[in-house]
């Protein structure tokens, strides 16, 4: 195993409780650069909460989250994003009232301060980058359309595109293929395969076929604790996992 310094993300002894209920209980997790890690587990296992904790949406009760040399538990959400962590939500989280172009533009990593946003000009570099991303996420023809009118799948892609334009070092995806039709799912898988190159990815997913396709390593959460961790093969055959999850 590599030394501590080599991990992109080290989550150690992380816990959080809501009114006494321990949603995440002493979880440790190490993600290497360029690794694709999938978190699986039954409903209520604390998967989404782990992502929430990493991106700062929820504050940990105890434990530490180190991203490279930064301690995320004490940083603001936008600071975490600037450090290089991107997050996609479970339900497509895009801006309905804006066009696809504007949606992508807002995620463009420039002019993030109030003054910067005020003085931000939509120059050639910006436009080209957005068009390029739009091409990648199959939305080149919908740039001027209000995001509200996109299909569910397109909305998911748009959100992925919004992450992509940030170019994060760690990308966190919460059920990226949930609720998609078969063809959309195929496209999405293809898209994900394209974008995960050159960065670490943390994915929550239920779709086992999909998981097998992309996962380097798998972490199984159960009742807020890590139940098992390793390759898909290893996890699949772990009797503890079989009992609580795959066996059903």
């Amino acid at each position, binding site marked *: 195993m590599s030394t501590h310094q080599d991990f992109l993300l080290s989550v150690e002894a992380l816990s959080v409780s*809501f*009114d006494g209920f321990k*949603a995440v209980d002493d979880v440790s997790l190490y993600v290497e650069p360029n690794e694709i890690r999938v978190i699986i587990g039954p409903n209520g296992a604390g998967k989404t*909460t782990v992502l*929430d904790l990493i991106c700062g*949406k*929820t504050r940990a009760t105890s434990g530490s989250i180190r991203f490279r040399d930064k301690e995320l538990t004490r940083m603001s959400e936008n600071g975490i994003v600037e450090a290089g962590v991107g997050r996609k939500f479970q339900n497509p989280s895009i801006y309905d009232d804006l066009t696809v172009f504007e949606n992508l533009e807002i995620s463009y990593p420039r002019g993030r301060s109030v003054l910067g946003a005020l003085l931000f000009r939509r120059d050639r570099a910006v436009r080209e980058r957005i068009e390029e991303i739009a091409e990648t996420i199959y939305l080149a023809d919908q740039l001027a359309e209000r995001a509200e009118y996109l299909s569910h799948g397109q909305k998911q892609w748009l959100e992925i595109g919004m992450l992509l334009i940030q170019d994060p070092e760690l990308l966190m995806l919460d059920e990226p293929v949930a609720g998609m039709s078969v063809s959309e799912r195929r496209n999405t898988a293809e898209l994900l395969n394209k974008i995960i190159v050159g960065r670490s990815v943390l994915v929550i997913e239920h779709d086992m076929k999909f998981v097998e396709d992309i996962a380097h390593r798998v972490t199984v959460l159960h009742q807020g604790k890590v139940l098992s961790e390793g390759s898909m093969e290893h996890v699949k055959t772990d009797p503890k996992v079989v009992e609580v999850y795959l066996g059903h």
Partner: protein
Amino acid sequence: MLGDYSLSDLGSIFVMQGFAGLILFSVFLLMALGLAIIFGQMGVINMAHGEFMILGAYMTYLTSKLFETYLPALFPGYFFVAMIVAFLAAALLGAMVEWALISRLYKRPLDTMLATWGLSLILQQLYRSIFGAREVGVELPPWMLGSWQITSTIEVPINGMFVMALTAVITAGVALLIYKSRLGRQVRAVVQNRVMAGAVGIDTQKVDRATFALGCGIAGIAGSAFTMVGSTGPTAGQLYIVDSFLVVVFGGAQSLIGTIASAFTISQSRSTLEFFTSGSMAQVATLIGVVVILMLRPQGLFATKVRR
């Protein structure tokens, strides 16, 4: 400033201040209860809440006149009838308002505020046109006046006790209704997930209307009770609106216990401060306190902590 008084004086003042605080607490709670249902349970911001209270007050006035003219023998008991009339009238108006206005605005909760503000203007003018611009005096049955002498220096106002008792009964009733009854469960279901509640066979329309009417009805009773301590005029309702909202918000909108606790905190601090400073400064200090605490605990005193 307390050095000038004898110990027994201080003792009785302490007791009477305690009662003054409790009465204020009852008043606050009573006026906030209807709002706690409408705002806390339904998320509707009813700026005409004060006007519903005043409707109750006017109904009490009318009932008293009616008894005075036709049933003078039963006058001592008219107040109970008046409260029922007040409840029914306010609830009926509430149901009508829900049907005409609120039901069209569930998707835009902040807009309910603007529409009900318009409604409050209309109601004020309506009262003015019907009852005249002057205040009306509601005559109380003699037994409600005066005070109950406990010791030579300790006296407790009877109407204050009455308000306290009434508040206790209504609070208990509301608690039962929200937490134990079928309607209460349905209301909570609708609030949490309107679509889902509809899907499992709850008539959301009916539930909404009943809830809103209930909240307004309670406001009517509050208004009726307030004729004992306050004034009844077309614009008197505006006096209550900010206090009511602060009590509900401060308590954590969805929690009945929160509303009770917050009414208690606000009333006790105001009543105590009023004793040591002046009325104006007491109100300012209490408001600042509430604002600061809300800043530190944006969800109010008693909101449950959940994964957001």
